[in-house]
């Protein structure tokens, strides 16, 4: 006979055991972070003392503390610029997703359509953004519209090509199944092809999210809109012409952080959408 107390005790013991395993896993996870953090600190120390150790002039390579100081000193203007850049890049990114998916759906309708459009999609990808940005700015004037368009051009191709691959690789027998049940074109699209292509679309989004931020900054750099509407691209222009290296580094770091955050966001959305069914987002037990 097991008494209630014993039972409860067993319960607590089991609970403790689970807790310990979880702690262990957490510790292991933390252990995984240790090497890159140590490397980072090492480089930081080296960098900080580069002036004294290697005689590198501070105006060429400002010390990390100086860069942090520059971020703090210019915090409000950096945040304002980041906000502008963020808005523009999210606009370009959203436009890429909508247009990219629509174009891919259109291309998936027939081989002829696919073959006629594909080369031009590739051209969008291969044209250097620094050469096309001035043209767009001349055409549309310096402003949010042209920057959005530049961001779009840089980020749309991964969406098109990934979505197209997903749509075209839809399992053949599932298509047959839909035909057997006399599904309409819309039903086949919504209930089969789009869900099937979703992991592919999300992969495309992961690639193009960073591209959208870069495209925006290049656009701002070229457009040269001054003042508070300039975005990070303009901050970089100003800092570069004045040779304020600490501010330039500060802008670069803020740009990196934003690109990284956007990627993390897309990655989180991807895992959320796919967690129940797609291999890429399932935590395997073995």
């Amino acid at each position, binding site marked *: 006979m097991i008494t209630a107390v014993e039972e409860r005790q067993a319960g607590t013991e089991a609970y403790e055991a689970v807790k310990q395993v979880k702690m262990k896993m957490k510790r292991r996870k933390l252990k995984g972070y240790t090497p890159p953090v140590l490397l980072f600190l090492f480089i930081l120390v080296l960098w900080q003392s580069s002036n004294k150790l290697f005689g590198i002039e501070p105006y060429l390579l400002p010390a990390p503390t100086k860069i942090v100081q520059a971020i703090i000193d210019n915090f409000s203007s950096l945040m304002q610029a980041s906000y502008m850049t963020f808005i523009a890049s999210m606009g370009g990114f959203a436009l890429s997703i909508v247009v990219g998916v629509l174009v891919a759906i259109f291309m998936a309708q027939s081989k002829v359509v696919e073959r006629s459009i594909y080369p031009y999609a590739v051209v969008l990808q291969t044209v250097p953004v620094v050469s096309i940005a001035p043209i767009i700015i001349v055409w549309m004037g310096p402003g949010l519209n042209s920057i959005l368009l530049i961001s779009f051009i840089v980020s749309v191709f991964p969406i098109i090509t990934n979505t197209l691959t997903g749509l075209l690789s839809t*399992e053949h*027998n*599932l298509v*047959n*199944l*839909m*035909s*057997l*049940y*006399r*599904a309409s074109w819309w*039903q086949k699209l919504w*209930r*089969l092809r789009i*869900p099937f292509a*979703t992991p592919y679309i999300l992969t495309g989004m992961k690639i193009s999210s960073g591209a959208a931020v870069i495209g925006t900054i290049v656009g701002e750099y070229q457009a040269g809109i001054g003042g508070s509407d300039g975005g990070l691209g303009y901050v970089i222009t100003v800092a570069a012409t004045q040779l304020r290296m600490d501010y330039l580094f500060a802008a670069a770091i803020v740009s990196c952080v934003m690109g990284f955050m956007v990627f993390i966001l897309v990655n989180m959305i991807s895992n959320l959408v796919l967690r*129940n*069914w*797609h291999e890429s987002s*399932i935590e395997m037990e073995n």
Partner: protein
Amino acid sequence: MLQAKSKEIEERDYKEKVIEGNEENPASAKTIVKLKGIRKQYNTGVLAIDHVSLDIQEGEFVSIVGPSGCGKSTLLRIIAGLGDYSAGSLEIASGDANGKGSKDSGLSYVFQDATLMPWRTVIDNVILPLALRKVPKAEREAAAMEKLKMVGLEKYADSYPRQLSGGMKMRVSIARALASGPKLLLMDEPFGALDEMTRFRLNSELLQIWQDTGITVVFVTHNVQEAVFLSTKVVAMRAHPGRIREIVPIEHAYPRGDEFRSSMAFTELSATISSLL
């Protein structure tokens, strides 16, 4: 000349056998599938099947067996309307009276793989045919649940396909095929990828469903014993080109169980059919 003559005899031979096969069924049964001189030639010139004539009565369980390349799957796809044929005629009486424009073809198809949508839960997979037909939500959920109960998976309604074993996935696939309430169920080697124990169990379950629903089943397999165990008649095909060699009625009474599988009659029938392939 001689060759042509022997071919003629052959053809007459098989025609007689078809007629013979039909006589086994009560005259009152309605013909649900009528194939006449079906021929399928690919664009490459390869003749997949030729001279296939077959009548299937309502309520029958017909298995098509044959070596690989005999065109048994091709034939099933033609019946389903998934592939077209080069010559002959095909009549399917499974659809409802509304005719060709109707949303309901009255037939379902079970593929070799379970062919489930991984992003849909088990119940949502079973619901699919009803959702496509825009059946009201409460109604289709009840219907899907009933079919899941039929295959014994009601506890797994909210699971995702990846969480199920191969046999369970195939059960979901069968439940989905039944969901639309078809008159004709076409199955293309549905248990080919399963282990023998699971296959035996699913064979029995399928027979139970067949008896309970009165559905007509056309079952393609390369496993002669499986065909004998399940069917009211077995269509033996041979390859190059795919033709019907013989139609063998299996007269043993239902329900069938292990005692049928271990009987002399079963062994003899299996041996006879194997020798025809």
